[in-house]
């Protein structure tokens, strides 16, 4: 793991590109943004602070970055490249477990957050017949 100081605006991950490292914020804040599908600019999803990790998903499933992460001010960030992670995994099982667990826990928190957002969105949409749609979709889904 290497630790570095990065100024405001420094790009850690770029949406759509492949990445092979994960990051831990030691000091400062990182903005997480995604492009608007309509093509006009991007929107802020969240800000990440000290003690939080980012760049996880791509490290685990070797996919492309789902968001752009950029330093919101001066930051101190630790980075762990995929190669080092794979090496750690093979050589130090206890460490690998601890690290894997940390990654898993962050994913669970993110997933629970998406759950919450979806649940609220569904409740709001009930006014527009969503609750009528869902059972019929479920029925459709069940027919195979």
């Amino acid at each position, binding site marked *: 793991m290497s630790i570095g100081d990065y100024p405001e605006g420094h790009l850690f991950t770029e949406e759509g590109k492949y990445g092979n490292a994960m990051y831990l914020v030691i000091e400062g804040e990182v903005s997480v943004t995604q492009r608007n599908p309509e093509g006009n600019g991007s929107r802020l999803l969240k800000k990440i602070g000290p003690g939080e990790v980012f760049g996880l998903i791509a490290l*685990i499933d070797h996919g492309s970055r789902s968001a752009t992460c950029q330093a919101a001010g001066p930051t101190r960030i630790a980075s762990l490249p995929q190669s080092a992670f794979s090496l750690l995994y093979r050589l130090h099982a206890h460490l690998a477990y601890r690290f*894997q667990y940390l990654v898993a826990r962050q*994913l*669970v928190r993110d997933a629970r957050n*998406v759950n919450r957002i979806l649940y609220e969105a569904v409740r709001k949409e009930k006014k527009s017949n969503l*609750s009528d749609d869902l059972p019929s979709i479920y029925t459709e889904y069940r027919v195979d």
Partner: protein
Amino acid sequence: MTITSTEFKKRFTPLLEKMDSTELEHLLPRLSPLEIAEGEQLLKMGEHSDSLYLLWEGQLSVEITGPGQTLHLVLIDEGKWVGEYCLIEPGPASATVRASRESKLLKLSSEDLDQYHREYPGGAAAMIRALSLDIAGRIRSVGRSVLSHVGDSEYRLKKESLREDRGFLAFMGKLFGAEEGKH
């Protein structure tokens, strides 16, 4: 319920990638078998849970409940599981799960996993990794296709995803029940 390595491997293949046979042999005794009758509730939405439940045999039904309403989402078949969020970070169950048929399950609590990792950290890491891959895949697919962003922290469901995407409810099920969703 006879739990052998062979039978376990047949049912839960995705979980065992990167786990060797010794690690698997020592995982099995840490799983607690349980049987539930048709209609019986396994997990209640909102109630604290700390365990993963592997479905050995039978079928589970996942639903979310709101004021005066219950929404059935998806069914879980043999070889799948529920509760991995609560295994990794104990907390409230995100959906209600009940048996739609008489079912046999294997339970692993976060305490069980902790003890297992002390002796077989490689096996425990393999299991966590497999669960993480599953979760990561779901976040990625649902986040993009189902939600559209309307201002900071405001989300709305993409209406088109309801009609055109038969898998929409699968997404919902995956996220809500979720850990309980049809894979």
